[in-house]
Protein backbone atom coordinates (compact mmCIF):
# COMPACT_ATOMS: atom_id res chain seq x y z
CA UNK A 1 0.00 0.00 0.00
CA UNK A 2 1.44 3.32 -0.95
CA UNK A 3 1.89 6.03 1.63
CA UNK A 4 -0.85 8.08 0.01
CA UNK A 5 -3.28 5.24 0.30
CA UNK A 6 -2.28 4.64 3.90
CA UNK A 7 -2.85 8.24 4.67
CA UNK A 8 -6.28 8.15 3.07
CA UNK A 9 -7.26 5.09 5.06
CA UNK A 10 -6.12 6.68 8.32
CA UNK A 11 -8.03 9.83 7.54
CA UNK A 12 -11.18 7.92 6.72
CA UNK A 13 -11.02 5.87 9.89
CA UNK A 14 -10.37 8.99 11.96
CA UNK A 15 -13.30 10.81 10.40
CA UNK A 16 -15.60 7.87 10.98
CA UNK A 17 -14.55 7.68 14.59
CA UNK A 18 -15.09 11.38 15.08
CA UNK A 19 -18.50 11.15 13.52
CA UNK A 20 -19.50 8.33 15.84
CA UNK A 21 -18.26 10.23 18.85
CA UNK A 22 -20.17 13.34 17.86
CA UNK A 23 -23.32 11.37 17.26
CA UNK A 24 -23.07 9.81 20.70
CA UNK A 25 -22.57 13.11 22.49
CA UNK A 26 -24.79 15.42 20.45
CA UNK A 27 -28.53 16.30 21.07
CA UNK A 28 -31.34 13.98 20.08
CA UNK A 29 -34.00 16.19 18.45
CA UNK A 30 -36.67 13.51 18.28
CA UNK A 31 -36.55 12.64 21.99
CA UNK A 32 -36.44 16.29 23.07
CA UNK A 33 -39.68 16.91 21.21
CA UNK A 34 -41.13 13.87 22.92
CA UNK A 35 -40.14 15.21 26.35
CA UNK A 36 -41.76 18.54 25.68
CA UNK A 37 -44.94 16.88 24.44
CA UNK A 38 -45.13 14.63 27.47
CA UNK A 39 -44.58 17.57 29.83
CA UNK A 40 -47.29 19.56 28.08
CA UNK A 41 -49.65 16.62 28.46
CA UNK A 42 -48.88 16.43 32.15
CA UNK A 43 -49.49 20.15 32.51
CA UNK A 44 -52.82 19.81 30.74
CA UNK A 45 -53.86 16.96 33.01
CA UNK A 46 -52.89 18.97 36.07
CA UNK A 47 -54.93 21.95 34.90
CA UNK A 48 -57.96 19.80 34.03
CA UNK A 49 -57.83 18.14 37.44
CA UNK A 50 -57.62 21.53 39.16
CA UNK A 51 -60.73 22.72 37.30
CA UNK A 52 -62.59 19.51 38.08
CA UNK A 53 -61.67 19.80 41.74
CA UNK A 54 -63.08 23.34 41.84
CA UNK A 55 -66.30 22.17 40.20
CA UNK A 56 -66.63 19.42 42.80
CA UNK A 57 -66.07 22.00 45.53
CA UNK A 58 -68.75 24.27 44.08
CA UNK A 59 -71.23 21.41 43.72
CA UNK A 60 -70.71 20.47 47.36
CA UNK A 61 -71.32 24.02 48.56
CA UNK A 62 -74.59 25.76 49.32
CA UNK A 63 -74.10 28.80 47.09
CA UNK A 64 -75.37 29.39 43.61
CA UNK A 65 -72.56 29.56 41.09
CA UNK A 66 -71.90 30.47 37.47
CA UNK A 67 -69.85 28.28 35.17
CA UNK A 68 -68.41 30.15 32.21
CA UNK A 69 -67.34 27.81 29.42
CA UNK A 70 -65.50 29.73 26.66
CA UNK A 71 -65.31 26.67 24.40
CA UNK A 72 -69.08 26.27 24.45
CA UNK A 73 -69.68 30.06 24.56
CA UNK A 74 -72.04 29.53 27.45
CA UNK A 75 -72.65 30.85 30.94
CA UNK A 76 -74.57 28.45 33.19
CA UNK A 77 -76.24 29.15 36.51
CA UNK A 78 -75.96 26.12 38.79
CA UNK A 79 -76.63 24.92 42.30
CA UNK A 80 -75.27 21.71 43.81
CA UNK A 81 -74.28 20.34 40.43
CA UNK A 82 -77.72 20.96 38.88
CA UNK A 83 -78.08 23.05 35.76
CA UNK A 84 -80.58 25.84 36.35
CA UNK A 85 -80.27 28.12 33.33
CA UNK A 86 -78.03 28.60 30.30
CA UNK A 87 -77.06 31.93 28.76
CA UNK A 88 -75.37 32.08 25.38
CA UNK A 89 -72.24 34.26 25.28
CA UNK A 90 -71.58 36.13 22.04
CA UNK A 91 -68.18 37.60 22.89
CA UNK A 92 -65.65 37.65 25.72
CA UNK A 93 -62.94 40.21 26.44
CA UNK A 94 -60.65 40.81 29.37
CA UNK A 95 -60.00 44.38 30.53
CA UNK A 96 -57.33 45.89 32.74
CA UNK A 97 -57.39 49.41 34.18
CA UNK A 98 -55.13 52.16 32.97
CA UNK A 99 -54.68 55.79 34.04
CA UNK A 100 -53.27 58.39 31.66
CA UNK A 101 -52.24 55.67 29.20
CA UNK A 102 -50.32 53.76 31.87
CA UNK A 103 -51.80 50.34 32.45
CA UNK A 104 -51.75 48.22 35.59
CA UNK A 105 -52.19 44.60 34.71
CA UNK A 106 -53.33 42.25 37.44
CA UNK A 107 -51.11 39.15 37.30
CA UNK A 108 -54.02 36.78 38.03
CA UNK A 109 -55.82 34.99 35.24
CA UNK A 110 -59.60 34.75 35.46
CA UNK A 111 -59.27 30.97 35.39
CA UNK A 112 -56.93 30.90 38.34
CA UNK A 113 -59.50 30.85 41.12
CA UNK A 114 -63.15 30.61 42.16
CA UNK A 115 -64.55 34.11 42.44
CA UNK A 116 -67.00 34.61 45.28
CA UNK A 117 -69.72 36.90 46.68
CA UNK A 118 -70.84 38.19 43.31
CA UNK A 119 -73.45 40.95 43.48
CA UNK A 120 -75.29 42.91 40.83
CA UNK A 121 -74.36 46.51 40.16
CA UNK A 122 -76.71 48.35 39.89
CA UNK A 123 -78.60 46.15 42.31
CA UNK A 124 -82.01 44.76 41.62
CA UNK A 125 -84.13 46.57 44.17
CA UNK A 126 -87.21 45.00 45.68
CA UNK A 127 -90.02 47.39 46.42
CA UNK A 128 -92.03 45.72 49.18
CA UNK A 129 -95.63 46.53 49.86
CA UNK A 130 -96.36 46.73 53.59
CA UNK A 131 -99.94 46.15 54.69
CA UNK A 132 -101.20 46.78 58.18
CA UNK A 133 -104.13 44.45 58.54
CA UNK A 134 -107.32 45.96 59.93
CA UNK A 135 -108.62 44.40 63.14
CA UNK A 136 -111.07 41.55 62.69
CA UNK A 137 -114.49 42.80 61.69
CA UNK A 138 -113.28 46.25 60.82
CA UNK A 139 -113.14 45.66 57.08
CA UNK A 140 -114.92 48.37 55.07
CA UNK A 141 -118.08 47.53 53.19
CA UNK A 142 -116.72 48.58 49.87
CA UNK A 143 -113.35 46.98 49.33
CA UNK A 144 -111.28 48.22 46.45
CA UNK A 145 -110.17 45.62 43.96
CA UNK A 146 -106.60 44.56 44.70
CA UNK A 147 -104.07 46.10 42.38
CA UNK A 148 -102.52 43.75 39.84
CA UNK A 149 -98.79 43.68 40.49
CA UNK A 150 -96.43 44.54 37.63
CA UNK A 151 -94.66 41.97 35.48
CA UNK A 152 -90.96 41.32 36.07
CA UNK A 153 -90.17 43.33 32.94
CA UNK A 154 -91.97 46.33 34.41
CA UNK A 155 -90.57 45.81 37.88
CA UNK A 156 -86.92 45.35 36.92
CA UNK A 157 -85.79 47.43 33.96
CA UNK A 158 -82.38 46.26 32.81
CA UNK A 159 -79.61 48.87 32.30
CA UNK A 160 -77.61 49.02 29.09
CA UNK A 161 -74.62 47.72 30.97
CA UNK A 162 -74.35 46.10 34.38
CA UNK A 163 -71.73 44.36 36.45
CA UNK A 164 -71.50 41.34 38.65
CA UNK A 165 -68.80 42.34 41.14
CA UNK A 166 -66.90 39.71 43.05
CA UNK A 167 -65.04 40.06 46.32
CA UNK A 168 -61.60 39.30 44.90
CA UNK A 169 -61.62 42.21 42.47
CA UNK A 170 -63.11 40.60 39.39
CA UNK A 171 -65.97 42.34 37.70
CA UNK A 172 -68.06 40.65 35.04
CA UNK A 173 -69.44 43.31 32.76
CA UNK A 174 -72.53 42.28 30.84
CA UNK A 175 -73.44 44.27 27.75
CA UNK A 176 -76.80 43.47 26.27
CA UNK A 177 -76.98 46.50 24.05
CA UNK A 178 -74.08 45.53 21.88
CA UNK A 179 -76.07 42.52 20.88
CA UNK A 180 -79.23 44.48 20.23
CA UNK A 181 -79.39 45.51 16.58
CA UNK A 182 -82.66 47.35 17.19
CA UNK A 183 -81.03 50.07 19.31
CA UNK A 184 -80.29 53.25 17.35
CA UNK A 185 -77.01 55.13 17.20
CA UNK A 186 -78.08 57.95 19.52
CA UNK A 187 -78.96 55.75 22.53
CA UNK A 188 -75.73 53.84 21.91
CA UNK A 189 -73.72 57.08 21.90
CA UNK A 190 -75.35 58.32 25.09
CA UNK A 191 -74.75 55.01 26.81
CA UNK A 192 -71.13 54.93 25.60
CA UNK A 193 -70.41 58.42 26.94
CA UNK A 194 -71.89 57.70 30.37
CA UNK A 195 -70.11 54.36 30.54
CA UNK A 196 -66.81 56.02 29.64
CA UNK A 197 -67.28 58.50 32.46
CA UNK A 198 -67.93 55.68 34.92
CA UNK A 199 -64.91 53.74 33.66
CA UNK A 200 -62.64 56.76 34.09
CA UNK A 201 -63.92 57.22 37.61
CA UNK A 202 -63.44 53.56 38.44
CA UNK A 203 -59.90 53.43 37.02
CA UNK A 204 -58.83 56.62 38.79
CA UNK A 205 -60.15 55.41 42.14
CA UNK A 206 -57.62 52.60 42.13
CA UNK A 207 -59.88 49.94 40.65
CA UNK A 208 -60.30 48.17 43.96
CA UNK A 209 -63.44 46.57 42.72
CA UNK A 210 -62.45 46.11 39.09
CA UNK A 211 -58.86 44.88 39.14
CA UNK A 212 -59.86 42.61 36.25
CA UNK A 213 -62.89 43.04 34.05
CA UNK A 214 -64.40 40.21 32.13
CA UNK A 215 -66.68 41.66 29.49
CA UNK A 216 -69.43 39.39 28.19
CA UNK A 217 -71.76 40.25 25.36
CA UNK A 218 -75.04 38.37 25.64
CA UNK A 219 -78.18 38.34 23.56
CA UNK A 220 -80.49 41.05 24.94
CA UNK A 221 -83.05 38.54 26.22
CA UNK A 222 -80.40 36.47 27.94
CA UNK A 223 -78.80 39.55 29.48
CA UNK A 224 -82.17 40.71 30.79
CA UNK A 225 -82.95 37.27 32.12
CA UNK A 226 -79.57 37.07 33.88
CA UNK A 227 -80.04 40.48 35.49
CA UNK A 228 -83.51 39.61 36.77
CA UNK A 229 -82.71 36.08 37.87
CA UNK A 230 -79.25 36.26 39.38
CA UNK A 231 -79.32 35.14 43.02
CA UNK A 232 -77.32 37.07 45.61
CA UNK A 233 -73.76 36.17 46.61
CA UNK A 234 -73.09 34.04 43.53
CA UNK A 235 -69.73 32.40 42.76
CA UNK A 236 -67.98 32.10 39.41
CA UNK A 237 -65.62 29.61 37.79
CA UNK A 238 -64.18 30.10 34.31
CA UNK A 239 -63.50 26.80 32.58
CA UNK A 240 -60.73 26.15 30.16
CA UNK A 241 -61.36 27.50 26.70
CA UNK A 242 -59.66 24.68 24.93
CA UNK A 243 -62.36 22.15 25.60
CA UNK A 244 -64.20 20.59 28.52
CA UNK A 245 -62.08 18.41 30.78
Amino acid at each position, binding site marked *: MTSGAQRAVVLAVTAAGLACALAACGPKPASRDGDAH*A*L*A*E*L*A*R*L*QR*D*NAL*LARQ*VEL*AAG*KDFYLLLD*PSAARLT*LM*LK*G*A*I*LQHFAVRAM*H*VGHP*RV*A*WVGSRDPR*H*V*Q*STVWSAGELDPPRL*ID*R*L*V*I*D*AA*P*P*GAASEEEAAPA*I*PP*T*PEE*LYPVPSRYHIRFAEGLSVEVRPREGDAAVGWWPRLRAAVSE*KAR*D*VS*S*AVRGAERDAI*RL*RLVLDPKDAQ*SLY*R*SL*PPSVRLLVL*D*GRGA*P
Partner: protein
Amino acid sequence: MAPSPSLPPSTGETATDGGPDGTGSPSRSPEMEPARGPLLPPRGTPPAAGRFGPARPRARAARLALGALGLALLLLAAGTGYRYEPYAPQPPAFSGDAPADARAREQQTARLNARRRDLAARLAAAAPRGVYIVIDQTQNRLYLRRGDETLLQAVCSTGSGMVLRESTGKKRQWVFDSPRGRFEVRSMHKDPVWAKPDWAFVEESQPIPRNPKDRLEYGSLGEYALRFGDGFMIHGTLYERLLGRAVSHGCIRVGREDLRVVWANARVGMPIFIY
Protein backbone atom coordinates in the same frame (compact mmCIF):
# COMPACT_ATOMS: atom_id res chain seq x y z
CA MET B 1 -66.91 129.46 4.53
CA ALA B 2 -67.90 127.66 7.67
CA PRO B 3 -65.80 124.52 8.47
CA SER B 4 -67.51 121.17 7.98
CA PRO B 5 -69.05 119.74 11.19
CA SER B 6 -67.25 116.41 10.66
CA LEU B 7 -63.77 117.83 10.83
CA PRO B 8 -61.99 117.79 14.18
CA PRO B 9 -61.71 121.08 15.88
CA SER B 10 -58.49 123.07 15.67
CA THR B 11 -55.96 122.98 18.45
CA GLY B 12 -56.38 126.60 19.25
CA GLU B 13 -55.56 128.26 16.12
CA THR B 14 -58.42 130.03 14.68
CA ALA B 15 -58.87 130.34 11.03
CA THR B 16 -58.81 133.77 9.80
CA ASP B 17 -60.81 134.45 6.86
CA GLY B 18 -62.66 137.13 5.53
CA GLY B 19 -65.79 137.01 7.48
CA PRO B 20 -68.98 138.28 6.24
CA ASP B 21 -67.95 141.65 7.34
CA GLY B 22 -64.69 141.30 5.52
CA THR B 23 -62.61 142.51 8.44
CA GLY B 24 -60.29 139.42 8.57
CA SER B 25 -60.75 138.92 12.30
CA PRO B 26 -61.30 135.36 13.66
CA SER B 27 -64.89 134.51 13.13
CA ARG B 28 -65.24 130.78 14.51
CA SER B 29 -67.62 130.64 17.37
CA PRO B 30 -68.02 127.75 19.84
CA GLU B 31 -71.24 126.76 18.12
CA MET B 32 -69.31 126.05 14.98
CA GLU B 33 -66.83 123.59 16.56
CA PRO B 34 -67.59 120.15 15.10
CA ALA B 35 -68.89 117.62 17.63
CA ARG B 36 -66.44 114.79 18.49
CA GLY B 37 -69.07 112.38 19.72
CA PRO B 38 -69.39 110.47 22.97
CA LEU B 39 -67.50 107.31 21.81
CA LEU B 40 -64.26 108.85 20.76
CA PRO B 41 -61.78 110.09 23.34
CA PRO B 42 -60.48 113.59 23.07
CA ARG B 43 -57.66 114.12 20.64
CA GLY B 44 -54.29 113.27 22.12
CA THR B 45 -55.64 110.92 24.81
CA PRO B 46 -53.42 107.82 25.03
CA PRO B 47 -55.28 104.52 24.53
CA ALA B 48 -56.76 103.17 27.79
CA ALA B 49 -55.06 100.06 29.22
CA GLY B 50 -57.21 96.90 28.98
CA ARG B 51 -59.50 98.14 26.27
CA PHE B 52 -57.26 98.28 23.31
CA GLY B 53 -53.64 97.47 22.72
CA PRO B 54 -51.67 95.77 25.61
CA ALA B 55 -54.63 93.85 27.23
CA ARG B 56 -55.50 91.89 24.08
CA PRO B 57 -52.46 89.60 24.06
CA ARG B 58 -53.14 88.56 27.71
CA ALA B 59 -56.69 87.53 26.97
CA ARG B 60 -55.59 85.56 23.96
CA ALA B 61 -52.88 83.82 25.98
CA ALA B 62 -55.40 82.89 28.67
CA ARG B 63 -57.74 81.41 26.12
CA LEU B 64 -54.93 79.44 24.54
CA ALA B 65 -53.83 78.12 27.91
CA LEU B 66 -57.35 77.07 28.78
CA GLY B 67 -57.73 75.37 25.45
CA ALA B 68 -54.46 73.53 25.87
CA LEU B 69 -55.46 72.43 29.35
CA GLY B 70 -58.79 71.18 28.11
CA LEU B 71 -57.14 69.27 25.31
CA ALA B 72 -54.68 67.74 27.73
CA LEU B 73 -57.50 66.67 30.03
CA LEU B 74 -59.36 65.13 27.11
CA LEU B 75 -56.26 63.21 26.09
CA LEU B 76 -55.77 62.00 29.63
CA ALA B 77 -59.40 60.96 29.89
CA ALA B 78 -59.13 59.12 26.58
CA GLY B 79 -56.22 57.16 28.01
CA THR B 80 -57.96 56.42 31.31
CA GLY B 81 -60.40 53.59 31.78
CA TYR B 82 -60.09 49.99 30.77
CA ARG B 83 -58.17 48.41 27.94
CA TYR B 84 -59.80 45.30 26.55
CA GLU B 85 -58.35 42.40 24.64
CA PRO B 86 -59.92 39.17 23.42
CA TYR B 87 -60.10 36.46 26.03
CA ALA B 88 -57.36 33.83 25.86
CA PRO B 89 -57.30 30.75 28.07
CA GLN B 90 -54.60 30.35 30.63
CA PRO B 91 -51.73 28.31 29.17
CA PRO B 92 -51.15 25.20 31.23
CA ALA B 93 -47.90 25.20 33.17
CA PHE B 94 -46.51 22.10 34.78
CA SER B 95 -46.04 22.47 38.52
CA GLY B 96 -43.83 20.29 40.64
CA ASP B 97 -40.75 18.21 39.83
CA ALA B 98 -40.48 17.19 36.21
CA PRO B 99 -40.24 13.41 35.85
CA ALA B 100 -36.71 12.25 35.19
CA ASP B 101 -37.39 9.61 32.59
CA ALA B 102 -40.07 8.10 30.44
CA ARG B 103 -41.13 5.57 33.06
CA ALA B 104 -41.60 8.26 35.70
CA ARG B 105 -43.62 10.27 33.21
CA GLU B 106 -45.88 7.33 32.48
CA GLN B 107 -46.47 6.74 36.17
CA GLN B 108 -47.30 10.39 36.78
CA THR B 109 -49.63 10.45 33.79
CA ALA B 110 -51.41 7.38 35.10
CA ARG B 111 -51.84 8.96 38.54
CA LEU B 112 -53.24 12.16 37.05
CA ASN B 113 -55.65 10.22 34.84
CA ALA B 114 -56.86 8.20 37.81
CA ARG B 115 -57.41 11.39 39.78
CA ARG B 116 -59.28 12.87 36.85
CA ARG B 117 -61.60 9.88 36.63
CA ASP B 118 -62.28 10.07 40.34
CA LEU B 119 -63.10 13.80 40.21
CA ALA B 120 -65.34 13.36 37.17
CA ALA B 121 -67.24 10.60 38.96
CA ARG B 122 -67.72 12.76 42.04
CA LEU B 123 -68.97 15.62 39.92
CA ALA B 124 -71.44 13.39 38.10
CA ALA B 125 -72.67 12.01 41.43
CA ALA B 126 -73.38 15.52 42.71
CA ALA B 127 -75.76 16.32 39.85
CA PRO B 128 -79.42 15.33 40.31
CA ARG B 129 -80.47 12.11 38.67
CA GLY B 130 -83.52 12.08 36.45
CA VAL B 131 -86.06 14.88 36.21
CA TYR B 132 -85.99 17.81 38.60
CA ILE B 133 -87.88 21.08 38.98
CA VAL B 134 -86.31 24.50 38.56
CA ILE B 135 -88.18 27.68 39.52
CA ASP B 136 -87.09 31.20 38.57
CA GLN B 137 -88.98 33.24 41.12
CA THR B 138 -88.10 36.66 39.75
CA GLN B 139 -89.32 35.90 36.27
CA ASN B 140 -92.08 33.54 37.44
CA ARG B 141 -91.04 30.55 35.37
CA LEU B 142 -91.06 26.84 36.22
CA TYR B 143 -88.96 24.32 34.32
CA LEU B 144 -88.81 20.55 34.28
CA ARG B 145 -85.22 19.58 33.48
CA ARG B 146 -83.26 16.45 32.92
CA GLY B 147 -79.60 17.49 32.76
CA ASP B 148 -79.16 19.72 29.76
CA GLU B 149 -82.66 18.96 28.48
CA THR B 150 -85.72 21.11 29.25
CA LEU B 151 -88.89 19.03 29.30
CA LEU B 152 -91.33 21.77 30.25
CA GLN B 153 -91.25 25.56 30.50
CA ALA B 154 -94.27 26.92 32.37
CA VAL B 155 -95.47 30.29 33.56
CA CYS B 156 -96.10 30.37 37.29
CA SER B 157 -96.68 32.79 40.16
CA THR B 158 -94.27 33.10 43.05
CA GLY B 159 -94.19 35.06 46.29
CA SER B 160 -95.25 38.71 46.08
CA GLY B 161 -92.70 39.93 48.64
CA MET B 162 -95.49 41.72 50.47
CA VAL B 163 -95.24 42.33 54.23
CA LEU B 164 -98.36 41.79 56.31
CA ARG B 165 -98.45 43.23 59.81
CA GLU B 166 -100.99 42.20 62.43
CA SER B 167 -102.40 45.27 64.17
CA THR B 168 -103.89 43.50 67.21
CA GLY B 169 -103.07 40.57 69.44
CA LYS B 170 -99.56 39.18 68.93
CA LYS B 171 -98.69 41.89 66.38
CA ARG B 172 -97.02 39.33 64.16
CA GLN B 173 -95.46 40.04 60.79
CA TRP B 174 -95.30 37.82 57.70
CA VAL B 175 -93.14 38.31 54.60
CA PHE B 176 -94.52 36.55 51.54
CA ASP B 177 -91.31 35.50 49.78
CA SER B 178 -90.73 32.24 47.99
CA PRO B 179 -87.73 30.44 49.47
CA ARG B 180 -84.43 30.12 47.62
CA GLY B 181 -82.23 27.01 47.45
CA ARG B 182 -82.57 23.26 47.04
CA PHE B 183 -85.59 21.38 48.30
CA GLU B 184 -87.26 18.02 47.78
CA VAL B 185 -90.82 16.91 47.21
CA ARG B 186 -91.93 15.58 50.58
CA SER B 187 -95.47 14.61 49.77
CA MET B 188 -97.85 14.58 46.83
CA HIS B 189 -101.59 15.28 47.09
CA LYS B 190 -104.45 14.90 44.66
CA ASP B 191 -107.41 17.28 45.14
CA PRO B 192 -105.60 19.00 47.99
CA VAL B 193 -107.46 20.79 50.77
CA TRP B 194 -105.97 23.99 52.09
CA ALA B 195 -105.73 24.34 55.88
CA LYS B 196 -105.53 28.10 56.01
CA PRO B 197 -102.82 29.46 58.29
CA ASP B 198 -103.33 32.45 60.61
CA TRP B 199 -102.10 35.03 58.11
CA ALA B 200 -104.89 34.12 55.69
CA PHE B 201 -107.44 35.26 58.29
CA VAL B 202 -105.44 38.29 59.39
CA GLU B 203 -105.18 39.40 55.79
CA GLU B 204 -108.96 39.23 55.41
CA SER B 205 -109.49 40.96 58.76
CA GLN B 206 -111.30 37.87 59.98
CA PRO B 207 -111.02 36.31 63.40
CA ILE B 208 -108.74 33.32 63.62
CA PRO B 209 -110.94 30.23 64.13
CA ARG B 210 -110.41 27.96 67.08
CA ASN B 211 -111.86 24.91 65.40
CA PRO B 212 -109.33 23.41 62.94
CA LYS B 213 -112.14 22.37 60.64
CA ASP B 214 -113.01 26.02 60.16
CA ARG B 215 -109.64 26.53 58.52
CA LEU B 216 -110.24 24.09 55.67
CA GLU B 217 -110.83 25.45 52.15
CA TYR B 218 -111.63 23.17 49.20
CA GLY B 219 -110.72 23.66 45.56
CA SER B 220 -108.47 26.70 45.87
CA LEU B 221 -105.25 24.71 45.38
CA GLY B 222 -106.24 23.12 42.08
CA GLU B 223 -106.03 19.44 41.15
CA TYR B 224 -102.61 18.62 42.65
CA ALA B 225 -100.16 19.87 45.25
CA LEU B 226 -96.52 19.01 45.92
CA ARG B 227 -95.33 19.94 49.39
CA PHE B 228 -91.65 20.73 49.87
CA GLY B 229 -91.43 21.86 53.45
CA ASP B 230 -92.19 24.78 55.79
CA GLY B 231 -95.73 25.06 54.45
CA PHE B 232 -94.60 25.74 50.88
CA MET B 233 -96.23 23.92 47.97
CA ILE B 234 -96.40 23.77 44.21
CA HIS B 235 -100.11 23.80 43.48
CA GLY B 236 -102.81 24.91 41.08
CA THR B 237 -104.71 28.19 41.17
CA LEU B 238 -108.08 29.78 40.49
CA TYR B 239 -106.36 32.93 39.23
CA GLU B 240 -104.70 31.76 36.03
CA ARG B 241 -104.95 35.26 34.55
CA LEU B 242 -102.39 36.37 37.12
CA LEU B 243 -99.81 33.74 36.21
CA GLY B 244 -96.47 35.36 35.33
CA ARG B 245 -96.79 37.88 38.15
CA ALA B 246 -95.58 37.63 41.73
CA VAL B 247 -98.92 37.35 43.54
CA SER B 248 -98.68 34.33 45.82
CA HIS B 249 -97.95 34.16 49.52
CA GLY B 250 -94.78 32.17 48.89
CA CYS B 251 -96.13 29.02 47.23
CA ILE B 252 -95.64 28.31 43.56
CA ARG B 253 -98.88 28.52 41.59
CA VAL B 254 -99.01 26.73 38.25
CA GLY B 255 -101.67 26.60 35.54
CA ARG B 256 -103.81 23.51 35.24
CA GLU B 257 -102.33 21.98 32.09
CA ASP B 258 -98.73 22.55 33.19
CA LEU B 259 -99.48 21.21 36.66
CA ARG B 260 -100.66 17.96 35.10
CA VAL B 261 -97.32 17.57 33.34
CA VAL B 262 -95.44 18.33 36.57
CA TRP B 263 -97.57 15.79 38.44
CA ALA B 264 -96.93 13.13 35.80
CA ASN B 265 -93.15 13.51 36.21
CA ALA B 266 -93.02 14.12 39.96
CA ARG B 267 -91.98 11.69 42.66
CA VAL B 268 -91.35 11.95 46.37
CA GLY B 269 -87.73 13.00 46.83
CA MET B 270 -87.61 14.84 43.51
CA PRO B 271 -85.25 17.85 43.78
CA ILE B 272 -86.66 21.34 43.47
CA PHE B 273 -84.29 24.25 42.86
CA ILE B 274 -85.59 27.77 43.41
CA TYR B 275 -83.55 30.88 42.62
